[in-house]
């Protein structure tokens, strides 16, 4: 008798802007495009509002991968929020890489309200990549009274 070994199902957190990517993800659904259910969407007004601390919080609370997505350059609902965000991400990525955070687990994208298919591809692709990487136990977790993954291992 054979047992199916259940594959690791990564937890993905996506921080998306209200105007483009959230609407894009909506379109994915209304277009009946299937995609990996591993992602939890967190909607913020604008990518300009996506503080780098939010990404750390996601990993600290057990995310295995993070997606950050918003309007294409030039399409920001607030004119320039995504331009500012882009600069912050550029610096943040360099710092994360330097302190040994795995950049393969942090994905940035522009997904417009019309790009339902791109959203599905993005999530599926990130899921596949993170699945191959396995759980992100190397990132410390927020204390909640339970043993830390590092202690268990």
């Amino acid at each position: 008798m054979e047992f199916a070994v259940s594959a690791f199902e990564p937890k993905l957190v996506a921080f998306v802007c209200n105007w483009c990517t959230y609407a894009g993800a909506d379109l994915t659904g209304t277009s009946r495009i299937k995609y990996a259910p591993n992602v939890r969407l967190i909607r913020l007004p604008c990518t300009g509002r996506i503080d780098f601390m939010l990404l750390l919080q996601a990993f600290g609370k057990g995310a295995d991968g993070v997606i950050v997505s918003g309007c294409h350059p030039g399409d920001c609902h607030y004119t320039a929020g995504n331009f500012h965000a882009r600069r912050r991400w550029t610096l943040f990525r360099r710092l994360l890489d330097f302190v040994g955070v795995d950049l393969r687990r942090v994905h940035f994208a522009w997904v417009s309200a019309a790009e339902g298919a791109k959203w599905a591809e993005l999530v599926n692709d990130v899921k596949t990549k993170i699945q191959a990487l396995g759980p992100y136990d190397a990132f410390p977790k927020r204390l909640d009274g339970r043993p830390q993954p590092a202690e268990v291992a």
Partner: protein
Amino acid sequence: MEALRQRARELLAAGTVQAVLGYAAGSEPDRARPCFVRTAAEADGLIWNEHCRQNLATYLQKPEVRALGRLALVARRSTLRALLQLAAENQLADGRVVALFVADDGAVTELPTLAAIEELVARLPRGLSDADRQELDRIAALPLGERQAYWAGEFARCIKCYACRAACPLCYCARCITEANQPQWIPVSSDPLGNLEWNIARAMHLAGRCVDCGSCSDACPEGIRLDLLNHVLAEEARTQFGAEPGYSVRKDYALASFKPDDKQEYIR
């Protein structure tokens, strides 16, 4: 050193400044301590050597120091840069301090205005020291797992005393992110996540602003090289956005401006 003392005496005697903030001999020959000289006679206590490292611009925001009146500030390159950056961030009025820049040969230049500081600092050599550069490159070249392990080991020693923040001339927020508790962004405890988040947040909040004085890691009682985090960000901000904080009083904060064609090859 004598030139510095003489200039301090003159400034105090003329009443140009009410105090000279400089360095005095420390507990041991390998240390120096910040000191506040109020009278010409006390100027004999001023010293200048390679141990005079704490960035004295840090003191300018303290109410007790503000109360002293107009100050002269013994300065190295990073002190001058801190003054310009503070001015760019509207934290320092022109003329509030007279910078006394001490060159490697001991020559003292009196810089009474921000314009004078700008002019001098523009002529100084730029960039990291060779030792800092080597350490930066060494860590950056480590494989990901080793880099992660290196910093996890370093941050494990962090006791959240916040000496890094207290020593930094540009950490002047009346209320720091780490003290915000609704929500509690950064854990209070010095657990692995709390320490990682604190050190990342500290570096990020200085990105494009840091003047590379190294006071943060000099202050760390555990000797964590957290200045390297700042150097990495400073380098990225310079190469990507041309940011050179502390060379001008013009506000050109890299994270408060943008170009439509900024790098984005990592964004799909």
